C-alpha cells in the first residue's frame, strides 16, 4: 500500500480533489490528542492501493498554529510515501511558499497545479516542464472540479512512490551567508546520528535558526545540545 498525504493552502480545491480521488470510501476520525478532523480515504490505481490522508489546509508549516503543526508532524513523523501539494495555479506566487517548505522537509512531493482551466482563462502562461525542473519534483496540471488531469496525477503519484529513494533532491539556496550558517548548525546536528536519521538535518538546522519551538524542544534532548546552542544566534 502507498500512503499519500494531500496538502495545500486553504481554498485551492483540496477537498474536491480528495473526494474525486476517494469517492465515498472515506473514514473520518480525529488527529491523535486533538479534536481536528482527520479524513482518510482509499483508491485503487493499476492494482496498487493508495491510502490518502487529507491534511489540514495551511499557508505555512510553523509550530505556532495547531493545524500547521498537525500537517508538519504527520509528514515528519509518519513519513508518507508521497506528499501531493495542491497548488492554485492562478495564485502560484503565494502557494509556492508551502511548496518550498515541503521541499525543505525533504518530502516526496508531487505538485498538483490545480485550477488549470482558470490559469489559461486569466492569461497566465505557466511552463510546466520548467517549473518542474526548477522545483525538482513532478508537476501535474489538474482541474479538481471536473476531474481533468486526475489520471496523470495518479500516475505521477505511483511513479514518485516507486522512485522514492532515487529522486533528485533539489536544494533551494538561501544565499551564501545563510548557507554558511545553515551548514555550521547542520554539521553539529549531524553528529547526533539518531536524530539525523529520523529527521532531515538541514531542515532541523533551518528550523533551529528560525527559533522554531517544537524543533528546539527536540534538539534540547540531544547530547549535543550545548554545542548546537553555541552555533545558533540568540534572540
Amino acid at each position: 500500500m502507498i500512503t499519500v498525504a494531500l496538502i495545500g493552502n486553504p481554498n485551492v480545491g483540496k477537498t474536491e480533489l480528495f473526494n474525486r480521488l476517494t469517492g465515498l470510501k472515506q473514514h473520518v476520525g480525529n488527529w491523535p490528542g486533538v479534536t481536528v478532523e482527520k479524513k482518510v480515504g482509499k483508491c485503487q490505481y493499476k492494482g496498487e492501493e493508495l491510502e490518502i490522508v487529507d491534511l489540514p489546509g495551511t499557508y505555512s508549516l510553523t509550530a505556532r498554529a495547531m493545524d500547521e503543526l498537525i500537517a508538519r508532524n504527520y509528514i515528519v513523523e509518519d513519513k508518507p510515501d508521497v506528499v501531493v501539494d495542491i497548488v492554485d495555479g492562478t495564485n502560484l506566487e503565494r502557494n509556492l511558499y508551502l511548496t518550498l517548505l515541503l521541499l525543505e522537509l525533504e518530502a516526496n512531493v508531487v505538485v498538483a497545479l490545480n485550477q488549470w482551466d482558470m490559469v489559461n482563462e486569466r492569461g497566465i502562461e505557466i511552463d510546466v516542464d520548467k517549473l518542474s525542473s526548477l522545483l525538482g519534483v513532478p508537476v501535474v496540471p489538474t482541474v479538481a472540479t471536473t476531474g481533468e488531469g486526475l489520471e496523470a496525477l495518479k500516475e505521477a503519484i505511483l511513479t514518485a512512490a516507486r522512485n522514492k529513494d532515487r529522486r533528485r533532491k533539489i536544494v533551494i539556496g538561501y544565499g551564501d551567508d545563510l548557507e554558511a550558517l545553515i551548514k555550521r548548525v547542520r554539521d553539529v546536528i549531524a553528529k547526533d546520528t539518531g536524530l539525523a536519521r529520523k529527521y532531515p538535518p538541514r531542515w532541523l538546522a533551518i528550523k533551529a535558526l528560525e527559533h522554531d519551538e517544537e524543533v528546539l524542544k527536540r534538539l534540547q534532548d540531544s547530547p549535543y545540545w550545548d554545542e548546537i546552542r553555541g552555533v545558533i544566534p540568540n534572540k
Partner: protein
Amino acid sequence: MNEYSGEDLEVVFPERRYEAIAKIMETAVRVRKERKWTFTDILDHVFLHRVLGIPIFLALLYAVFQFTFAISAPFSDMIDLSFGWLGSLAGANISNPMLASFVADGVCAGLGSVLVFIPPIFILFFALAILEDSGYLARAAFVMDRAMYKLGLHGRSFIPLITGFGCNIPAIMATRSIENENDRIITILVNPLMSCSARLPVYVLLAGVIFSTSYVAGAAVFSMYVLGIALAVMSALVFRKTLFRGKPAPFVLELPRYAVPGLKSVTLHMWERGKWFLIKAGTFIFAVVIVAWALSTFPWAATAGGELIENSYIAMFGHVIEPLFRPFGWNWQSAVALFFGFLAKEAVVGTFGALLGAEGEGVNIALANAHWFTPLSGFAYMVFVLIYFPCVATIGVMLKELRPRWVLFAAMYTLILAFVVASLVMAIGHLAGLA
C-alpha cells in the same frame, strides 16, 4: 559570521524563500498583459461591494430560510402524520396501559416531534452547502470581516461563526485556525449565540403556533438568526473592550473562485452534517424524551396513567422553577422544556411533545390549542432559547478548548443575556401594546 541576530533570522528566512519564489516565477510564468474580466471578477464586483455586500448577504440568507421552509413543509407533514398514526395505532392495540402510554406518548409523540425536523435541517444544510461550494460563503465571510474589523474584531472569526449556523461544535473546533489566543477565546465565547440547527425546530414550532401566516412565521425565524449575529458581534465587542484589550491581529483571506456546485459534493456535505442530527435524535434526544415521558407519567396512579400531568413528578419540578419565568408569562411546562433543552436544544420540542401527549395531531396543533403562548410571550421564548446556555455537547467541546473558568463564564453570560434580552422583548412588546 554573527551578522544576524536570532530575531533577524526569523524575518530573513521567509524573505529569502520569497526571493527564490520570485526567481522561479520569473523563469516559468508569464502573464499576458491584456487581462480580461473573468466571471469571478464580475461576481466579486457585486458580492464584495462596499455598500451592497452586507445587504446582499442578508438577502441570500433570508432566501435560504424561506426556501428551507417552503420545500420542507410537506415532508414534515408526512412524517408528522405517520408518527401520529403510529401513536394512535399503538394506543389502540397495546393492552398494557403503561406500555401503550410509553409507546404512544413517549416514543411516538416525543421522538416524532423531533424527527419531523429532518426535512428542514437537511434542506438547510443542503442550501448552506450550495452557498459554500459555489464559493459564496467565503465572500460572505469577507464582507462581514470588513465590517467586524472596523469594530475591532478579528477578521478570521466570521468563518467559525458562520459554521455555527450548522452546529456550534465544529464551529468551535474551526477557531483553531485563529493564531492569536485572545481572538480565539472571544470567537469561542460568542459562538453559542450563532443559532445552530438544533434551535431551528424550536423556532419553527413556536413561530408556527403564534403566527398564523407562514410568511410572518418565516420572518420571525429569520429574525432569530439576525439577532444571534447581532448579539455575537456586540458581545465580542464588549469582551474586546473589557476582558481582552488590544487590537485584533491582521488577517488574510483567500477567496476561492466561483463554481457551479456539484450535486454529489453538496449531497455529501449535507449528509455529513445532517447525520449527526439523526444520531443525536436516535440516542441522546431519545433518552431525554423518555425521561420526560416517565417524569410526566409517574406516579402512575396519581396521574391516572399520564392523563393528569398536574400530579406528576415533572409538574412538581416545573412548579418549583416556574416562578423564575413567570414575568415572561411562560407556564411550568415551558419552563421544564427549557430545562431539558439544556441537554440538547431539540429536546425543548420533544418535551412539548411528551407533555402534550400529542397523538394523531401534530405537536404544533396541540400546542396552538393549548394556548400556552401569546405572540409576545412566544417570541420572547424563541429569543430565550436562542441565547440561554450552550448545550451540553458544546460545553464539552469548550472544556477541551478553553480553561474551565472561561467555560463557566460562557454559561453564565449567555444565561444572563437570555433573561435580559427576553425581558427587553417583553417590555418593548408591552410598550407597543402587543400584550
